[in-house]
């Protein structure tokens, strides 16, 4: 068993008791809710005549079903409107703060939590969404839960959990040109497998992680679950504290910042912490990674060949064959040149301001390929406003991208933004599962935001490092 890690310390501080079933009951420091997984839980509370225990530690937003083109009410989709209305009623009755689209603060739940300053080191954070692991970037212990567990948290502000092992993943070296946090996590999942993290919490460390900005760390922690790890985290450091100090909340409450910081420092993993497993990856050897298949673990360096199924572990061969058939790719080829129909720059993985800046830097002075429909969906209304104040929207629009409102959008087929037929998308999102982007014949290639921008311009999967120079007018 691990000892002295952030995970151990945060667990111990939040442990209420050991339950008769052997699980620990943990106090939940922040409960984030959205419209898809919470209404049934509120319904269960009503059936049992239970009130929400800690509305003050609960924060709601709307993201999965919200339209990104026209957010005026009522929503065009009746089912979406019903879910929105239900959430509005539930948060009103319970006295829960709701960042709705009229607030200017709405966005994807894993983007707004950090923005609001409520995602903090040393907190336990849960949400009925598997990408809750994102918040681990701040040194929080954050994980996704199901609806019955949401009921538990609403009712008690606690959750029943088994303690996991801790695997330290040390990424050494400096990342090369065109290589981002996204490539690091895709490589981790490729190496350790989509189920390699089952039973583990991942601690990301090493020079390549520490030198990332908070948004990069969020991209990495976000996809922990794609590697089977329910939670992943980075120890808080100067980058974390500086990011937090610039949130509105801590700018308005500087005394709170000073009061909490010693706690944040205290929950960092000790230098002599013990881990259940340690994995080291040379970050300097990475190139941009793209997926060739239908799980996030089926990735490959942009210049490397798509693997022969027979070269993979036996239990991965069938999945690989079916994935290659679905994607219509051939082993031995690279993914370079794979034609795409859609470019999607968005999602809780990669729709924060630095992601949009990197995409815009590639797009500037270039044009979206005539056969591609391309869209940028900022992760939150705040990200959108900040991007617009820098003129990023103009760069994207001029190149031929659609510039949308905040939401989950085309990451999953729950709103109007979906693939059609067998369209292929270059996507900065997190899942390339069959049907994930709304069409069961749709094909998703996961990649970093710069690579999405390059694919949009070229109409095919492209090594962003090899993109021809923009012709300059003298």
């Amino acid at each position, binding site marked *: 068993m691990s000892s002295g890690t952030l995970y151990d310390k945060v667990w111990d501080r939040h442990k209420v008791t050991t339950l008769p079933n052997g699980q620990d009951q943990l106090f939940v420091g922040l409960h984030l809710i959205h419209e898809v997984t919470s209404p049934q839980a509120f319904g269960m509370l009503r059936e049992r005549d239970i009130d929400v225990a800690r509305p003050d530690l609960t924060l709601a937003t709307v993201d999965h079903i919200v339209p990104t083109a026209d957010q005026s009410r009522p929503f065009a989709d009746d089912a979406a409107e019903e879910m929105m209305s239900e959430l509005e009623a539930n948060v009103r009755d319970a006295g829960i703060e709701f960042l709705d689209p009229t607030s200017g603060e709405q966005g994807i739940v894993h983007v707004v939590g950090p923005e609001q300053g409520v995602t903090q080191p040393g907190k336990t954070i849960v949400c009925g969404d598997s990408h809750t692991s994102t918040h681990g970037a701040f040194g929080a212990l954050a994980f996704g839960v199901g609806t019955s567990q949401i009921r538990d948290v609403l009712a008690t502000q606690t959750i029943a959990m088994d303690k996991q092992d801790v695997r330290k993943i040390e990424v050494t070296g400096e990342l090369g040109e065109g290589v981002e946090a996204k490539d690091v996590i895709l490589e981790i999942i490729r190496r350790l497998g989509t189920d390699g993290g089952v039973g583990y919490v991942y601690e990301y460390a090493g020079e390549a992680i520490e030198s990332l900005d908070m948004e990069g760390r969020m991209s990495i922690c976000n996809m922990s679950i794609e590697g089977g790890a329910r939670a992943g985290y980075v120890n808080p450091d100067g980058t974390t504290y500086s990011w937090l100090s610039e949130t509105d909340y801590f700018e308005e409450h500087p005394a709170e910042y000073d009061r909490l910081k010693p706690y944040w420092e205290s929950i960092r993993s000790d230098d002599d912490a013990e881990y259940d497993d340690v994995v080291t990856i040379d970050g300097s050897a990475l190139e941009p990674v793209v997926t060739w298949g239908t799980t996030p673990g089926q990735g490959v360096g942009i210049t490397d060949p798509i693997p022969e199924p027979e070269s993979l572990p036996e239990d991965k061969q069938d999945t690989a064959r*079916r994935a290659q058939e679905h994607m219509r790719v051939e082993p031995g080829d690279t993914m370079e040149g794979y034609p795409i129909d859609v470019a999607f720059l968005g999602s809780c993985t990669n729709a924060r301001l630095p992601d949009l800046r990197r995409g815009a830097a590639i797009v500037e002075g270039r044009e979206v390929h005539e056969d591609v429909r391309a869209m940028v969906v900022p992760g939150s209304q705040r990200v959108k406003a900040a991007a617009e104040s820098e003129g990023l929207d103009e760069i994207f629009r001029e190149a031929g991208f659609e510039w949308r409102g905040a939401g989950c959008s085309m990451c999953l087929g729950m709103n109007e933004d979906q693939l059609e037929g067998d369209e292929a998308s270059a996507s900065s999102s997190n899942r390339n599962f069959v049907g994930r982007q709304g069409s069961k014949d749709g094909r998703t290639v996961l990649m970093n935001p710069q690579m999405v921008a390059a694919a949009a311009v070229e109409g095919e999967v492209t090594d962003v490092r090899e993109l021809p120079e923009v012709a300059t007018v003298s």
Partner: protein
Amino acid sequence: MTGSEVDVPEVTEVSGTGIPIRGNDIDTDQIIPARYLKAVTFEGLGQFAFFDQRYDDEDNPKDHPMNEDRYRDASIMVVNSNFGCGSSREHAPQALMRWGIDALIGESFAEIFAGNCLALGVPTVTAEAEDVRDLQNWIEEYPDEEIEIDVAAETVHFDDRTVPVTVDDGQRKALVDGIWDTTALMQSNAEAIEATAADLPYADRSD
């Protein structure tokens, strides 16, 4: 916090006929496509379980075990590795349960999925890959024969064979003792919850 009593049955054994769903890394988007999550209750989800694997674009049935008459009354789903990976949607086990599944046997399960099953009193028991394949083959041959899962003893009985399976410690105790619905159980620790919160620097009750 108030609350009314909820009946939480003990789940010591599950028996019934089986249905094999083959393949590794079957994600929850496959188990229940996202478009069926656009509802404020779980009612009626059973008919949409594995919908895109079961029906083509014109809603004509495709070749899939869940469309076969011989598996219509099955209550034990037998799966391979990393079943239920991806999205945390409880809609996935809700859909399977509402289709008629009372328990799953597999090589391995994704954690959130297994936790969601437990919260519904649905066991997710794991077995060696070879035993799982044997069981899947046997079910295909004998779809009307009973399979018995003994949760407490961690065994599965079929075809005059008894194979060892694993039921995670916490899950086993929760099922066998009928304490898998944790709301009331955790509510009863209200004082300890308050004490834990009071000891944290950030969780003071706001005015």
